């Protein structure tokens, strides 16, 4: 490849603390517009910020999960820019001394693991939301703008990677891994579709084998992991095209258009590049003592990477282990399946396969389904005992997920249990032979393709509950 992509990812994570970053207002996105507001988060004259200790604890947790150093004293800064949904026209953020710095996470693509360095994770506050009222819903043709300040002041953690990412697939894997870790920490609901976790990509390319960075372009507005990957891919190709034709890349911010599958240049806000950062005089430095940091470290849950490694130790394949470990609901279901006696790999297959597919199709969270670990163990037992064909087992699982009952009950109710009684099978075979003597003579005479006809007839007679392999064996024994 002629060009090497150089990619950095900036992630904004909304913390799900009870109250906002600098006031006592509730963090609640369902509430009626402008009901969770007060003088501080509305930027009324005279109001002052008081930092939320829980948010500081949680960003420290995030930093520790990403192997960051934690600053003993970090500093809030004011980031100055005018925007109508930003109540003070400055954002309280951090600048030269963030809470967390110099960490890393491992990211795996196609079995190959790379270490992506995390430059920093800093604490800031979210803005309000603008709703542009007008024909297109876009700002430039809006006739009115409605402002909702319920989100203003919600604690936001910005996690900035180094430019260590080298492909769109790796960018996606980084984002997915990061989301999984944040979700596992329980500090955010980390939902892309609701904007509680948001990804921006800085993309540049350089001739393969060189060191100097190219001009970087910031790409925004990716609402899914897939669109992140597509947007980065598009941007790499767009830049390569320009450079191949002897052009130059403009340093700019571009907007990903999901429908068209392209990035568009955003009208640049003049002066927006100089935020005139200065230390926030209303706030003292954030102190995270060694003692507090250690207390926080002790509360860290088992993180997905460690959990996946543990599952692989139980004999689960790497892909399934990663999928299980990345989801709280799957992890819980898997653990209870093991506890009920299900074999690890079998339970893993069901959970990452059929169960996950059903959950997506039905748009029902696995945790909210009727399925239990005991069900998984029972189902695995029935398949092992040859009581269910694999096709029947899938059907049974569907009924269990739909809440019809446990696998044994459901299999019986739907008449899906295999006939394992050899006497019953033999008499069914003999009955079919008796009804089709001519065809049997031809089979016995060497016309072997007729075996399929006989198996089919036996399946018809047994209502599909016979094991075709056992039926075949009995028919052959009759040929002698």
């Amino acid at each position: 490849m002629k060009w090497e992509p150089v990619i950095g990812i900036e992630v904004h994570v909304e913390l799900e603390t009870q109250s906002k970053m600098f006031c006592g207002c509730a963090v609640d996105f369902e509430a009626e517009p402008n009901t969770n507001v007060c003088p501080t988060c509305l930027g009324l004259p005279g109001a002052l910020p008081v930092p939320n200790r829980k948010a500081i604890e949680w960003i420290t947790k995030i930093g520790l999960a990403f192997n960051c150093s934690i600053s003993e004293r970090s500093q809030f800064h004011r980031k100055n820019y005018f925007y109508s949904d930003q109540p003070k026209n400055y954002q309280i953020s951090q600048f030269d001394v963030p809470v967390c710095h110099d960490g890393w996470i491992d990211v795996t693509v196609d079995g190959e693991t790379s270490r992506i360095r995390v430059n920093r994770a800093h604490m800031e506050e979210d803005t309000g939301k603008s709703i542009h009222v007008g024909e297109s819903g876009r700002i430039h043709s809006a006739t009115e703008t409605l402002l909702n300040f319920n989100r203003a002041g919600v604690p936001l953690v910005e996690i900035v990677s180094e430019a260590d990412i080298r492909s769109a697939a790796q960018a996606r894997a980084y984002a997915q891994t990061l989301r999984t870790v944040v979700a596992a920490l329980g500090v955010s609901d980390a939902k892309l579709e609701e904007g509680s976790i948001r990804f921006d990509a800085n993309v540049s390319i350089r001739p393969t084998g060189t060191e100097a960075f190219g001009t970087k372009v910031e790409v925004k507005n990716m609402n899914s992991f897939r669109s992140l990957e597509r947007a980065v891919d598009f941007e790499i190709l767009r830049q390569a095209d320009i450079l191949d034709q002897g052009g130059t890349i403009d340093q700019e911010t571009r907007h990903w258009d999901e429908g068209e599958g392209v990035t568009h240049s955003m009208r640049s806000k003049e002066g927006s590049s100089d935020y005139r950062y200065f230390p926030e005089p209303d706030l003292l430095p954030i102190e995270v003592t060694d003692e507090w940091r250690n207390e926080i470290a002790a509360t860290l849950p088992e993180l997905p990477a460690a959990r996946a490694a543990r599952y692989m130790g139980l004999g689960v394949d790497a892909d399934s282990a990663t999928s299980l470990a990345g989801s709280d609901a799957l992890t819980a279901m898997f653990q209870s399946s093991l506890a009920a006696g299900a074999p690890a790999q079998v339970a893993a297959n069901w959970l990452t396969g059929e169960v996950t597919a059903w959950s997506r199709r039905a748009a029902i969270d696995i945790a909210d389904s009727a399925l239990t670990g005991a069900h998984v163990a029972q189902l695995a037992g029935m398949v092992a005992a040859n009581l269910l064909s694999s096709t029947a087992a899938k059907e049974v699982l569907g009924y269990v997920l739909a809440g019809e009952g446990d696998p044994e009950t459901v299999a019986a109710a739907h008449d899906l249990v295999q006939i394992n009684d050899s006497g019953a099978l033999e008499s069914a075979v003999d009955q079919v032979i008796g009804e089709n003597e001519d065809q049997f003579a031809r089979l016995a005479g060497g016309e072997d393709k007729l075996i399929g006809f006989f198996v089919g007839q036996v399946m018809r007679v047994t209502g599909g509950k016979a094991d075709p392999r056992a039926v075949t064996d009995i028919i052959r024994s009759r040929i002698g």
Partner: protein
Amino acid sequence: MTNPADLTLVEAATALKAGDQTSVALTEAVLTRASLTEAAVHAYLTIDRSGALAAAEAADRRISKGRSIGPLDGLPIALKDNMMTRGVETTASSKILAGYIPPYDGTVVARLREAGAVFVGKTNLDEFAMGSSTENSAFGPTRNPWNLDTVPGGSSGGSAAAVAAGSALAGLGSDTGGSIRQPAALCGLVGMKPTYGLVSRYGLIAFASSLDQIGPLTHTVEDAAIVYEAIAGHDPLDATSFPGPAPSGTERLGEGVSGLRVGIVNELSGEGIDDEVLAAFRTTVQRLASAGAEIVELSLPSTATALSAYYLIAPAECSANLARFDGVRYGLRVDGGTVDEMMSRTRADGFGPEVIRRILLGTYALSAGYYDAFYGQAQRVRTLIIQEFARAYEQVDVLVSPTAPAPAFELGAKTQDPLSMYMQDICTIPSNLSGHPAMSVPVGLSATGLPIGFQVMAPALGETVMFQVAAAIENLSDDIGRPVLEVVAS
């Protein structure tokens, strides 16, 4: 008999306790005084007659039942109009906030309310507290009751003029570079700025957050100490609030200065100071020496750069603090074709020239490429000043200087020359940069009958000794009396 409007807080409280006065009578007296003086003085932007009388009646009910809630119960006080008062218009003397009714009380206002104080109204100031004469008000200047041709100082000139004129028994001001002490000096009052962090800033419209402090303007040192004690103390709503208990203001008021070491800051007591002010300063220092204080002359060279540092730090902070006034959520809105245009027009129309000058200065000082040379350098100077003062306080208990370089000047005399106006605060600014407490005490009158102030500065949390020295100075000085206003006399 003294008109009740001319009582000190202590005298008024004593009269209330003895049943010789009622809060309603005191309140009526200051309201009547205001009705006589306001046309000439214009200390107030808003007078809340009904609110004040209702509070006074409530105080009288408490007092008559023997349930007074403290030394300020029932006493009429004026609030600078940059302090949030629930339900009462608060403008910071800016067109951009004309008509703004706050939904909440600032912490200081709430504490005084709980202490039973009666709020007469909201006093005039230089717009957003930026100025030293109260001429930069969108609603017209305030005049000095000692001489109506002169300014009362600023930016807390409205509160100072109200107390001097007797249209309140005490007032609250805010001090960012001298905005309590300089008007106190020019209006013949005691004015005090506490240690940074001792008084909550919650509900004070921010000018320069790292410098602003609220403090009292009163006739006597004891009155100032009483108001200071009522408003000081930790506030969980202000993250920069000092967590420990506030030092006492009243504890050592009568103890004199014998054995105390008093430092004269050479740099603040010579060049640029008017002869009469310097003479009054020296006389007072001699009186302190005679009273047993040890006088030490000190050099604090960094004070020479304090003014420059202040005029980078304060505008830088104000450029961000005033960004919220944009026409979107409250206050003035001047419509435009786009939101950006609306914001620009609102701000251009809503802010006065001095405010715009400082926002521009501050924006420039923070700009990329200039930050280090301006804001960064100013912060280094500030650190130097803090260190130099800290070393000085190892040698002395308090530092002293004149408060303002000259007595009150005529209206309009400096409005065309911002730099000479900025020089008004040359002696007061260092204490804001260092965060230390400082206060002004009246020590005499000029030949033309204008008051002259004397500044006492103390180390961080040194309020007790500062009040002690100030009270001694008050005792050693000749009483300057009260201004004589023809409208009142006739």
